[in-house]
């Protein structure tokens, strides 16, 4: 019997991929394996028991940090053991480097940024994946086993757990000393801003001059009951907000997206494509964001934003 092997260190993402894996395994009559690797895997293993036919665990003190050289040895061992036709890996940053490294070790192909997966008549894996900065979609075929696909969060839906409990297979692996040593590690405070589920998002780009000016956006946001998003430089360069939207950040699908002072680069646009209505405010007539907007306002956000707040307050008052 063939197999589908699913790995992600991110539990939510692994459950989503196991759900998709279940669908593929029904098509292929394959066994569904969840792979869990780490220095303390108990909790993670318990959470995937009802989502797979078997859980392969690799537990070792040397696997405390996300060391790709050592984790690769684990994935390769698991592949040798169950010889899967398909390997699905979660597209976290670590997942991406692990997938590519493992693929090289197995002399296998690998498809990243996949947004859909199918099996063709010959049993090959077909994937649609984003290319050209996220502006186009390529249909690709992996024509040799194992087929490896790397998938981001929230592409596939997590199913309800099954009542069947998976068997657990423990693998013992040897992990030599890595060529890379950790000197320091700072955990990031995980703030889930809920952008992915938001129904209205107001977003800031570099048109904002100062951090304090975001208060204007916060005021608008509280009237609309929306979430606040931004472009990558506002978050990664300025550190004004925790998460950004785009190809390398959150991909959002609100019913209303309002962009203030955002130029509309391909990388940002790739994250907002799923929005029902896009509104943009920009002072540059030639800004690309207008091309992908339903409603555009040519003007200074510092005058438009306060006016919008004023009008919405008035509307709210007269109607309540």
């Amino acid at each position: 019997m063939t197999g589908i092997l699913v790995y992600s260190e991110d539990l939510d993402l692994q459950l989503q991929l196991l759900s998709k894996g279940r669908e593929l395994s029904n098509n292929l009559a394959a066994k569904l394996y969840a792979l869990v690797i780490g220095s303390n895997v108990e909790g993670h293993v318990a959470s995937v028991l009802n989502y797979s036919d078997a859980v392969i665990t690799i537990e070792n003190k040397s696997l405390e940090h996300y060391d790709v050289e050592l984790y690769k040895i684990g994935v390769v061992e698991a592949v040798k053991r169950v010889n899967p036709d398909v390997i699905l890996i979660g597209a976290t940053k670590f997942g991406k480097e692990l997938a590519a490294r493992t693929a090289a070790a197995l002399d296998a192909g690998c498809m990243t940024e996949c947004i859909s997966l199918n099996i063709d008549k010959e049993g090959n894996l077909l994937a649609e994946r984003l290319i050209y900065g996220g502006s186009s979609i390529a249909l690709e075929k992996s024509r040799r086993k194992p087929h490896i696909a790397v998938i981001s969060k929230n592409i596939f839906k997590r199913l309800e757990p099954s009542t069947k409990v998976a068997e657990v297979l423990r693998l013992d692996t040897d992990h030599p000393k890595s060529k890379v040593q950790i000197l320091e590690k700072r955990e990031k405070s995980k703030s889930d801003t809920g952008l992915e589920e938001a129904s209205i998002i107001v977003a800031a780009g570099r048109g904002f001059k100062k951090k304090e000016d975001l208060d204007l956006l916060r005021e608008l946001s509280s009237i609309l009951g929306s979430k606040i998003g931004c472009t990558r430089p506002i978050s990664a360069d300025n550190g004004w907000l925790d998460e950004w939207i785009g190809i390398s950040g959150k991909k959002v699908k609100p019913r209303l997206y309002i962009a203030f002072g955002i130029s509309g680069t391909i990388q940002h646009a790739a994250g907002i494509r799923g929005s029902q209505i896009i509104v943009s405010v920009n002072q540059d007539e030639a800004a690309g964001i207008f091309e992908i907007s339903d409603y555009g306002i040519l003007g200074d956000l510092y005058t438009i934003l306060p006016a919008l707040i004023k009008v919405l307050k008035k509307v709210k008052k007269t109607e309540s």
Partner: protein
Amino acid sequence: MIISDWKVRDVDEIWRLCDLVKIVVLVKDIPDLTDIKIGQDRRPILVSVKRKINDLDKRALESAVQLKEKYGGEVVTLSLGDEKTRTTILDALSSGADSAYIINDKELIGLDALTTAKVLSFALKKLAPFDLVLCGEMSLDTLSSQIGARIAEILNISQVMYARRIDLVGNKIKVERELEYCEEVVEAELPAIVSVIREINEPRIPSLMNIMKAKRKPVIEWDSKTLGLSVEELKKLSAIEILDVKAPLVERKRIMIKGETPEEVAEKLVEALRSEGVLRDLQ
């Protein structure tokens, strides 16, 4: 200047003692994404699109040049390209690279990540000894983000991805890298391959003088024969086939809202959004 005293590796005899830092930067020239138009059949039109160096590779090059300015050595670029790459690569030579190697072979165009990484690894062996290979975390056209990690595996060298800061400490490299959950400071044996993220630096704008000088810097072209590669074997090995490329349909209304005053504009917008039914909570 740094003295590397790393040992000859078991896999390859090529790593030997050297007393200068040699940094190889992987540079890909890609279509200018803002220049790509979509045809009637929704397929992107790539002919006659300008080409430029992948933004992240330019940042990798900038890091290499900064390391060179601090520790000496030489910076060379390596590209798998075509005849147009000769022109694009001038930008790298103006920005501080000492010489450029281009693999230019019609038979090697359109390879998948697996075979591209093999070709580049062959070329890197020919460029050895080196201490460091730098590249961008991904190329913005294919978004595959596989090449760095694959090369690390093929050459059995240290792999450190997503660098935000790079420095040399003794005979090791120290890197600050960023994952979703944490930031890490790691130390890696040389030789190493390191990929950089956008935030690592702002690439310099080359001066007119450096642009003139660049034209006299060596550009060396290689093909499958110079690399001792069998094109036939590579093609057999290739695993991924592109069947089609399409741009998703974007149907946006593109209505510009105008008015005498900001208030008038805001009122018109609110009206429009209410009739779209997207301001539910206010209705």
